[in-house]
């Protein structure tokens, strides 16, 4: 509770530190406008047109449904890979044999391109939710797994021995040693897995689903509706920005304050 209060208290300062990022976003928009003036609106519609089209999207109830569906699929896939990856990774890290055995499997999982998984998933599960969620899980699972594996393999023997010399109980060991150490490995891996999930969910939907943002993107492509496509992309990026900078970053700064 105290921790949550501190996160909220520090939040305005965190926002204030965002001016630099905002300046770079505006610079990007200016370059975009330059591109529009050079190539014309079929290739690159102006930011203004895209934002208008985004405004229309956001006031459209059927788009809300699509956004909700995509977020839901992404979150389910992400949560499953988070739980599974963390749990299996920690277990694998605990046993030397398991960590040695799991390495080539992880390499295989990382090596297979997500697009190949989508094809396989479409054959196995047909078109629909399951295909999308499966692809998300299979693509982001290895990231979390490797993070958890490395976390549990690198717990310092010296610190463990120190705790034992003071006859510290298991529960306090978890709170004071294992959790802070593991978290410094797990959290970054969760963040990259979340980014991965979000990208994969769009791609899987584009190829295998009739609803969701990915499917809307497929429609925009077939109508050659560039403003709509770019508006969808902007929404996708907007969601990512929100989650990463407004939700995750403040938590990370609080928990990892001992580092800097």
């Amino acid at each position: 509770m105290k921790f949550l209060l501190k996160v909220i208290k520090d939040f305005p300062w965190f926002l204030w530190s965002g001016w630099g990022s905002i300046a770079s976003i505006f610079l990007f928009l200016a370059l975009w406008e330059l591109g529009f003036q050079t190539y014309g609106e079929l290739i690159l519609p102006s930011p203004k047109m895209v934002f208008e089209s985004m405004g229309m999207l956001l006031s459209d109830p059927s788009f809300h449904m699509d956004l909700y569906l995509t977020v839901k699929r992404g979150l389910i896939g992400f949560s499953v890979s988070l739980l599974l990856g963390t749990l299996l990774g920690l277990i694998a890290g605990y046993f030397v044999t398991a960590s040695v055995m799991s390495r080539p499997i992880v390499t295989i999982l990382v090596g297979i391109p997500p697009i190949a998984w989508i094809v396989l998933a479409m054959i196995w599960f047909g078109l629909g939710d399951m295909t999308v969620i499966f692809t998300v899980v299979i693509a982001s699972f290895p990231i979390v797994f490797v993070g958890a594996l490395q976390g549990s393999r690198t717990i310092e023997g010296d610190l463990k021995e120190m705790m034992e010399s003071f006859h510290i109980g298991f529960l306090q060991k978890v709170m004071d040693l294992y959790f802070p150490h593991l978290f410094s490995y797990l959290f970054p891996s969760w963040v990259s897995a979340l980014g991965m999930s979000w990208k994969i969910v769009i791609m899987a939907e584009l190829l295998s689903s009739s609803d969701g943002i990915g499917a809307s993107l497929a429609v925009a492509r077939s109508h050659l509706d560039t403003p709509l496509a770019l508006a969808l992309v902007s929404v996708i990026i907007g969601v990512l920005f929100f989650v990463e900078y407004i939700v995750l970053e403040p938590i990370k700064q609080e928990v990892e304050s001992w580092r800097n």
Partner: protein
Amino acid sequence: MAQLRIGELNFYYGFTQILKGIDFSLEEGKIISIVGPSGGGKTTLLKLCAGLLDVVEGEIDNSFSSSAFAFQDPRLLPWKTSLENIMMPLHVKIKERELKEKATALALKFGLEKSDLLKHPKDLSGGMRQRVSFARALIGEPKLLFLDEPFSALDIGLKKELQSFVLEACEKQKMSVLFITHDLMEAIKLSDTILLLKSDPGEIVARYAIETSQKERDDAFVFEQTKGFLEDALIREIFEIKVNA
């Protein structure tokens, strides 16, 4: 009376014998130091006594009610502040507020500044970290303290200061200390008994008792005794002293 008794202790890493026939006992309020060259199994012996390694052959009988360990390196938890690190051993045992007061008082006594208490270990100097580590070892008022060359990386002033804290705790709380060092002067200054450990395999080859009480051991006494020790043929052989000092 509580005591730590070691009898016929042997220890092996693989097929290499590290310790051979170790035999001594440590009584309440006494200080025993184990002196010997580096790599002679001193740390292994200390860890066995502290229960950090399993005894395979021989006997270790520890009837002290509590013990603590100060390592050569500070081994602080990097994600905790100095104060939280000091509080760590007693965290679940006494109330937070009481503990905080106790830890703060102890830290200030050990020469830490108020502003240091909220710093994380990486923002402290090496000497400060060692003070924190020492405060952490002593906060639980252990009946038995294991010291693994904790003074070796410190400057002379800090060394003397921390040594006097150990002596004080021995006198006031009847604390016993088992401590290992390769510094003869340190051993002569602090201990009631000095055990000389030769290496390959680690074996106690000599025992020296110092009768003079620790309070009366001034620098002249320590120098004089050290000189005597350094002239001892056995010690010269064990430490492989080849040139004449």
